[in-house]
C-alpha cells in the first residue's frame, strides 16, 4: 500500500510476465532487424520489455516466447500460494472425464496417466470405490530428492514440476515415487498439430519429448491465469475441490462453490495416501462414505480392456 506503482506499468509487466513473453537482447534484435529489413517500414510497433528490464519500441514480429524466460518463471512458481486438492471419494462415479481432459491438455497417450482413477478398497470386504490419483505434490517429495540434474523440482507454491528439456531419462524419480504418479515417454510421444514448432511450456509439459519423464503438474499453466486445473474443471460429479491452503479456501470444480479448506477436511475426516511414508501430500481424500454411486465389478478399464486380476498373496 505504501509504494505506488503506476497501474499501466504494472499491468504491462504482469501481462508480459504472465505469458512468458520477452524480447531477445540487443544482438537478437539486431539479427531480426537484418531479417526484417526487406519488410515494409510501416509495421506496427509496440512497447516491449526487454529481458534486462528496459522498455523499447519494437516490431510485433519480434515478440516471441522465450524458452529460457519461461523456464525461469516456471521454476519460481506463484508467490504466496500453496495449492491443494481435495478429492471426495463419495462422489467419484468413474466418469473418467478428468483422465481424458488431462490427457488431451498434456498431449498424452491413452496409457499415460497424470491422473488415474483406480478401483480400490481399504481392506478386504470393506467395499470398493473409485479413487482418482494425481501426483500428490508432496511437501517431502521422494522424487525430487533423487533427480541427478534438478530436472524435477518443487516450487514455492507447492507444485512439483519436471523440465523435460533437462531430464536425462534415468527414471530414478519413477522408481522413487511410492504413488506411481510418473510416466515415461518410452517412444515418440503423441504429437498434436503445432507441437513441432511450439516453444516448450514447462507448466503444461507440452510438447512431450521422447526419453523424458512426464507427470501431473496441477495444471500450473491454468493456475497462472487463475483457472482451475483441467481435471477439476472437467469432473461432472463434484469430486474435486481445489484451492490455496494459505487462503484456506477450496473451490469445487463442478459446482464452483467455495468453502473453507480446514472445515472441509476436519468435518469429513480427510486423510492422505500412505501417510506412514512421511511424504506429506498436498492431495487430501474425503472418505468414501455415503457413496453416490454403485460400484460395478468387472468393468472394462480406461483402455476398454478387461483389467487383469490383482495378484494377492
Amino acid at each position, binding site marked *: 500500500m505504501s509504494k505506488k506503482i503506476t497501474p499501466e506499468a504494472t499491468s504491462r509487466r504482469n501481462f508480459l510476465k504472465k505469458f512468458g513473453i520477452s524480447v531477445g537482447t540487443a544482438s537478437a534484435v539486431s539479427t531480426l532487424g537484418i531479417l526484417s529489413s526487406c519488410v515494409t517500414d510501416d509495421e506496427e510497433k509496440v512497447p516491449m520489455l526487454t529481458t534486462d528490464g528496459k522498455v523499447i519500441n519494437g516490431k510485433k514480429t519480434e515478440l516471441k516466447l522465450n524458452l529460457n524466460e519461461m523456464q525461469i518463471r516456471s521454476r519460481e512458481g506463484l508467490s504466496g500460494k500453496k495449492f491443494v486438492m481435495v478429492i471426495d471419494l463419495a462422489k467419484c462415479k468413474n466418469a473418467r472425464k478428468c483422465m481424458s481432459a488431462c490427457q488431451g491438455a498434456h498431449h498424452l497417450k491413452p496409457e499415460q496417466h497424470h491422473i488415474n482413477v483406480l478401483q480400490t478398497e481399504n481392506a478386504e470386504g470393506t467395499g470398493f470405490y473409485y479413487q482418482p490419483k494425481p501426483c500428490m505434490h508432496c511437501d517431502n517429495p521422494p522424487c525430487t530428492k533423487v533427480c541427478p540434474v534438478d530436472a524435477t523440482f518443487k516450487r514455492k507454491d507447492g507444485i512439483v514440476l519436471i523440465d523435460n528439456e533437462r531430464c536425462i531419462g534415468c527414471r530414478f524419480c519413477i522408481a522413487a515415487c511410492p504413488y506411481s504418479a510418473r510416466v515415461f515417454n*518410452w517412444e515418440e510421444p503423441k504429437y498434436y498439430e503445432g507441437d513441432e514448432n511450439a516453444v516448450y511450456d514447462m507448466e503444461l509439459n507440452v510438447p512431450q519429448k521422447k526419453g523424458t519423464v512426464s507427470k501431473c503438474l496441477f495444471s500450473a499453466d491454468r493456475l497462472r491465469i487463475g483457472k482451475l486445473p483441467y481435471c477439476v474443471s472437467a469432473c461432472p460429479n463434484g469430486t474435486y475441490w481445489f484451492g490455496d491452503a494459505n487462503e484456506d479456501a477450496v473451490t469445487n470444480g463442478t459446482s464452483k462453490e467455495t468453502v473453507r479448506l480446514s472445515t472441509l477436511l476436519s468435518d469429513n475426516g480427510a486423510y492422505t495416501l500412505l501417510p506412514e511414508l512421511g511424504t506429506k501430500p498436498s492431495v487430501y481424500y474425503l472418505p468414501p462414505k455415503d457413496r453416490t454411486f454403485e460400484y460395478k465389478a468387472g468393468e472394462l478399464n480406461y483402455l476398454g480392456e478387461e483389467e487383469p486380476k490383482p495378484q494377492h498373496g
Partner: protein
Amino acid sequence: MSEIKKQSDEAIMAKIREDILTPMTKFPLIYKLWIGMLLTIIAVAIWGYIIQLQNGLGQTGMRDYVSWGLYIASFVFFVATALVGMLISAVVGLLGQKWIIPISRIAEMIALAFAMMAGIAIVVDMGRPDRILNLFLHGRFQSPIIWDVTVVNVYVIISILLLLLPMLPDLGIIRNHMKKDLPKWQWNMYNILSLGWVGTPGQYKILHSTLRVLLILIVPVAMALHTVTSWLSALTLRSGWDSTIFGPYYVTGAFVAGSGAVLVAMYFIRRAYKLEDYITDYHFDKMGKLMVLVGLVYFYFNLNEFLVPAYKMKTADAHHIFTLFSFHGEYGVMFWLTQMFGLILPITFGLFKPFRKPFPMMIIGVAIVIGAWFKRVIIVVPTLAHPFLPVQNVPENFHHYVPTGLEITVTLGILAAAILIVSILVKIFPVIPMWEIAEEKGVDIHKDL
C-alpha cells in the same frame, strides 16, 4: 657363492620370462576366433542400441511401473563383479596372504573391465544419453546418481593405477628382453608405460609404499562404490528396497560374484597359457575357501534380508515375499533357482576338498556368475512390479516385465565388451606378476632386469 646365486637367479628369471611372456607373442587360431566372436556380439549389440536410440526405450520390456529392468540389473552385476579387485588385492593381500600373487593381476583386470562396462550399462539405460553432460552442468549432489557417477570414476582410476603400478617392473623386463620379439609399436608402448623403470632399490621402495597407500585407499572407495549402488534402491520407500542392510548385503554379494568370475578366469587363462606351474591346484583350493567364506557371509545377509520381513508380513512386504518365496509367485522359480545354484550349492560343494580342484571350481564359478546376474534381476524387478497402489488402466504388458530380444542382445554386448577388454589385457600384459613371483622364489630382483 654370490656367483652361484646370481647364476641360479638368472636361470629362474629366464624360466619365468619364458613361461609368462611367450603367450603374449603368440596368437593361436582359437584366440582369434574368440576375439572375433566377442566382436560379432558387440557389433550386433551396437546395432540393437542404435535401434533403441532411434525408437526410444520402448524397444525394451520396461514400462511405467517396471521402469528399471535388465540394464540396471546388469549395471549392479558389473559393479559387483568389479569389486573383486579390491577383495583379492586389498583385503586378502593386506592380510599378508601370499597365495594371491599369481591371481591378483587377473582380479585387477576383471575389476577394471567390469567397472568400465558398468558405466556403459547405465548410459545404455538412459532415455536421453545425448544429455549426459547435464550430470556435470546441472548435477545436484543430493542425488545418489551423482554419488555413483563420482565413485565409479574414482574406482576406475584407482583400478587403472592398481593394474599399472605393480606392472612397472614387469614392463621393465619386457622392455629389456623382448625388443626383437615384439612389433615396434608394441615395444614402444611398453617402453613408455614402464616409466623408466630400472629396478633400483629406491624405485622398489617408492613402488612398495605407493602400492600400500593405493591398496588401503581402494578399500573405502570400493565399499563406497557398492554401497552407493545399493542406495539407488535402498534410498527409496519401496517395499523390497526399503532396507537398512542393503549396503553390506550388496558388498558381500559382490564378493561372491567376483570370486566366481575370478575362478572362471583363472581356469581358462591357466589352460590357454599353460600356467599350471604358477596357478596350481593350491590356488584353486584357496580361492574355493575364500568363495565359501564370502558365500557364508552373503548367505547370512540373505537370511536377514528375506526372513525378517517374511516373519512380520507387513502388507506390501508380504506381497513382495510371496512373489519370491512361492512357486505360484511371479518370481518364485527364478528366486529359488538363483539361491540354490548361485549360493547354497556353491557353498556346500566348496566345503569339500575334492570340489576345490580346477575343473569343479570353474563349473561352480560359472554357476555363481549366472546366479549373481539373476539375483540382481530379482533385486531390481519384483519390487517395481508391485508398487503400493494398484496398477490399473494400462495395457497388459505394463503389468509384467519380460526383457525383449533387443534388450538381451544389448546386455550381452556389454558383457562381451567386458570379456573382450579382459581378453585383450591378458594378451598385451603379463598376466602373472613376474617380479613378485621371482621375489617369492628368493631371486634378488634388484639385480636382474
